[in-house]
């Protein structure tokens, strides 16, 4: 199969759902719902993360996310942001399942500021509870190959190690571990959190990840719609580079032009 044909058919699959876009985007931290909708459309993403929160009773007519990011067009991935225990995570996602009617979810249980690093003990406990309740769990986790493998063996449908702390924009700070996690995984691996700019997303894909999940890198850029376009192309480029297989690295030069047939004075 040639490269062009291969990219056309290059889908990825999680829990039986197939996607063409390898960019999953968050819907938080935008200035308005209009900006959210425009940025997500520009990103080409097919799956979006969402949070579950109390309705504002004093203003029930306020526009809702669903009016701008229609769930019949995007696969909603409800998260457990703000949950610190297995019990809270299960309670939140049961409500999400009733609101949305699906069971594909993003589990994240975070430790304290300033790093909000995944709390893995609590994550394991919550994953077990959600799996027992028939959720399909995409799990945010530490960049720890042992933890990642254990989550997969428990039945999680995707492993999502952080590139760097949430909202830090520090990029993929430990590419070696991301590659290690991917090399042993049988379910999709997504870099989730830490992406700051397009080259970070491309690097994550060049490491072989199945997809990238980001939010602040678009929402907190100076021009979110333009950055969404950049992220879309970065993920496509990184994926193509991974499939193409990069050249080897060498400490010495190797000329690109032939050294024969040169014109020379006086010979």
């Amino acid at each position: 199969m040639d490269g062009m044909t291969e990219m056309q058919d290059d889908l990825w699959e999680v829990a039986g759902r197939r996607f063409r876009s390898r960019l999953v985007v968050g819907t938080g931290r935008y200035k308005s719902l209009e900006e959210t909708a425009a940025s997500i459309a520009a990103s080409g993403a097919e799956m979006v993360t969402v949070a579950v929160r109390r309705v504002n009773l004093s203003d029930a007519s306020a526009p809702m996310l669903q009016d701008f990011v229609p769930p019949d067009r995007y696969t909603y991935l409800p998260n457990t942001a703000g949950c610190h225990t297995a019990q809270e995570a299960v309670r939140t996602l049961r409500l999400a399942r009733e609101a949305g009617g699906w069971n594909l979810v993003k589990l994240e249980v975070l430790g304290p500021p300033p790093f909000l690093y995944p709390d893995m003990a609590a994550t394991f406990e919550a994953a077990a509870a959600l799996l027992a309740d028939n959720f399909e769990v995409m799990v945010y986790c530490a960049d720890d190959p042992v933890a990642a493998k254990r989550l997969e063996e428990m039945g999680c449908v995707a492993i999502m190690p952080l590139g760097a702390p949430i909202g830090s924009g520090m990029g993929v700070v430990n590419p070696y571990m991301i590659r290690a996690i991917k090399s042993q995984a049988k379910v999709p691996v997504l870099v989730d959190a830490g992406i700051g700019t397009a080259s970070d997303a491309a690097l994550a894909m060049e490491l072989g990840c199945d997809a990238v999940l980001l939010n602040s890198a678009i929402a907190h850029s100076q021009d979110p719609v333009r950055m969404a376009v950049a992220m879309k192309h970065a993920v496509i480029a990184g994926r193509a580079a991974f499939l193409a297989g990069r050249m080897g690295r060498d400490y010495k030069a190797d000329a690109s032009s032939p050294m024969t047939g040169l014109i020379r004075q006086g010979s």
Partner: protein
Amino acid sequence: MSWLVGRSTYRDMDQALHSRITLSVNGETRALPGGATVADLLAEIGLAARKVAVERNLEIVPRSQYGATVLASGDTIEIVHFIGGG
């Protein structure tokens, strides 16, 4: 037709229909007419049922049961929806 079964059932129903109940909705105290259902509560607030999920005393109320679920004094209700998140 349960009110035909006996006088006590009829009295309970009468009381339910003519008194008001007090319950907690998203942490706020609210009063509703006795006999009000989850569907009535959503209508009073002005929420479209298809955009929210409802929990009553820590149990999910299936959307199909909103009209049949009668609220009681002291109930703790949570009404949630999807918002932007990462």
